């Protein structure tokens, strides 16, 4: 297992993975417990970036550039997703006040 050298000190890749896991968990909890649609979107972004961090960390650890490439790709998709998600939200806010996502439940069976 190779190590990373940042600012003279050496860090094991597992630290990055741990950080990533914490970020992902925070994001997931945010999605589940928060009610404001905007915050939910932000939490999703958090989860995406946690995944990106994992990709980059593994890319460094395995000395394989593909992981970084995939992180770039993922960011692009995340940007697109954010645009679409925000656009939908803006549209919803135009017709009604939707501070609580539970108010948007018309599509129940």
């Amino acid at each position: 297992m190779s190590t990373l050298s940042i600012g003279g000190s050496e860090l094991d890749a597992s630290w990055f993975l741990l950080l990533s896991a914490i970020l992902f968990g925070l994001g997931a909890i945010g999605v589940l417990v928060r009610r404001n649609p905007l915050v939910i979107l932000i939490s999703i972004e958090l989860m995406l970036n946690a995944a990106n961090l994992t990709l980059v960390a593994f890319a460094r650890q395995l000395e394989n550039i593909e992981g970084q490439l995939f992180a770039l790709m993922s960011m692009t998709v995340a940007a697109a997703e954010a645009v679409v998600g925000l656009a939908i939200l803006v549209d919803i806010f135009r017709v009604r006040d939707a501070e609580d996502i539970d108010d948007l439940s018309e599509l129940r069976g």
Partner: protein
Amino acid sequence: MTTQLLALLVLLFPAGGAIVLAGRGWRAPRIFTVVIGPGVVWLSFLATLALLLGKASGDFTYWTWIKSGSFEVPFGLLIDNLSIFMCLVITGVGALIVTYSVGYMEHEDGPSYARFFTYMDVFIFSMLLLVLADNFVFLIVGWAMVGLSSYLLIGFWYQRRSAVLAARKAFVMNVIGDVGMILGTFVLFMSYHAVSYSTVFQGLCAPTGIRIATCRTFDSTSLEVAAFLLLVGAVAKSAQLPLHTWLPDAMEGPTPVSALIHAATMVTAGVYLVGRMHPIYDVATYAHDAVAIIGAVTALFAATIAIVQVDIKRVLAYSTMSQIGYMFLAVGIGAYGAGFFHLLSHAFFKALLFLAAGNIIHAMKDEQDMRKYGGLWRDMRPTAITFLVGSLSLVGVIPLVGFFSKEEILGLAFSKPDDNMVHVLWLVGFATALITGFYTGRMWWLSFWGKPSLQRPVEHPHAPRLVMMVPVAVLAVLAAVGGFIETRALGVGPAAVTDFLGSVFGPPRWEGGGTEIAVTFLTMILATALFIGALRLRPWTAYAPWAQRLLERKYYFDETYDWAFVRPMDWVAAFALRDIERPVIDAAVVDTGLLATGAARGFSATQTGYFRNYALVFVAGAVAIAVALLVLRALS
């Protein structure tokens, strides 16, 4: 013009007429229908005449209809003397009858009027296709299509329940025959791998026929089977025992239809079939004998029923069955020329009788019960005279056409060498000839003689229109002098029909002798005596009421069929509806639908519409999969 094109034209004229009338006739002025309807049949007749005068012959293939591997069905027309002869009868007599219909159907409104002529032209086309086809497939197509047009025309007055029932009965009976034809064709195809006449016939080993060149060994059993199956078709179409019950009911149709389809042409298709298939029947001797036996028995059977019928058209219907029985007898014993001569002669005099009867019915406001006529001799002289010509021709009085044709058949049956069965059949035919004299006499005296019946619907019947009288007169002339084209019954003179058809059937296989001519005259004199005697003998049934009842019930054939086939089928149908259709098939379909809607209702409970529910399920799923992977990793 080439023969090939001319032959196609014979078919195309009626087909075109039918198409034009079907598309335009109902909204065009009536004169349009009057011109097109009979006109195309006359054109077809002229084309046939051109074929006759051009001494045309040949087997023309126009295009390939079906091709699959080695199996090939061409659309081809066979022009030989037999098909030209049949086309002449169909288009000639047909043109006269369709012209007559212009007057007879005058009380129909515009669309109905056009519909009638459309059907008539469809019939003429189908019948021509039947006789012109050069292979079994198109024979069957024509065969089924004449059945269809017969169905449509019997049920022409579809507002009448009895007409619809009669049409349905005719159709079902004819389909039995169609199935026989198709199965027979299958059997022949299995043996000879071809559907065209020429290929099949060339494969036969005919002992007396004219095609022996490429004879091949064959399985005589399968040939007998095929011949019997084809005979089923012939018997159904020609209303012979035991598939005859539809013909009397078919009289529900308009009278010109009865004259054209149920007397002159379609019902003689069975005779044509046996004639066309003569290379097969010459070899399949059992089937050939069956043809003769069925014919003779039907002739006698139908004649006895005709004695007691009171409906003038039903008398003529049974008489038609009886006369076709004679034709079957003739072709069954190998006297093909005589059989087809009788076909021609019967077309003349029976069409005449039907059309003359139509004149009466028309004048009597559709009353068909002869007991309600009486004394028409005074009121409808021209019709009475023509009807008398037809009647005497039917009885076989010299020198009318019926005498020469019927006596030729009887004479040939009488003189066939070394065949006792045929001599018995001659006796049956002889008895039939006498009964024919009686029932024809009864019909004529009842209708035309004596005092007018008190129940007569019209006091002073109007004379028929010219367009109705002229075809009747033409047919009367033909029935009177047509016999002179073939006078072999007297042992002298020409034999035009037999000679003409000789190129198909070969030369006559035996000749009558002197005794035969004496017997001929004896038959004629006795039959004529009975014709005259019918005036006095009419109430004979008073002495034998049981016989009258038996004959009036038509030997209980309808009741037997009803009991043996119709009722059990009704019962099976009711059972299937009640115990199979509803509880099994219907239930399966309905329950499948219920299952789907029920399941959908159940699953829709999971669709709460709350985002957090979906997200929770999603995350929980992901966690569960992750845990499962970890556990698996740890275990391995």
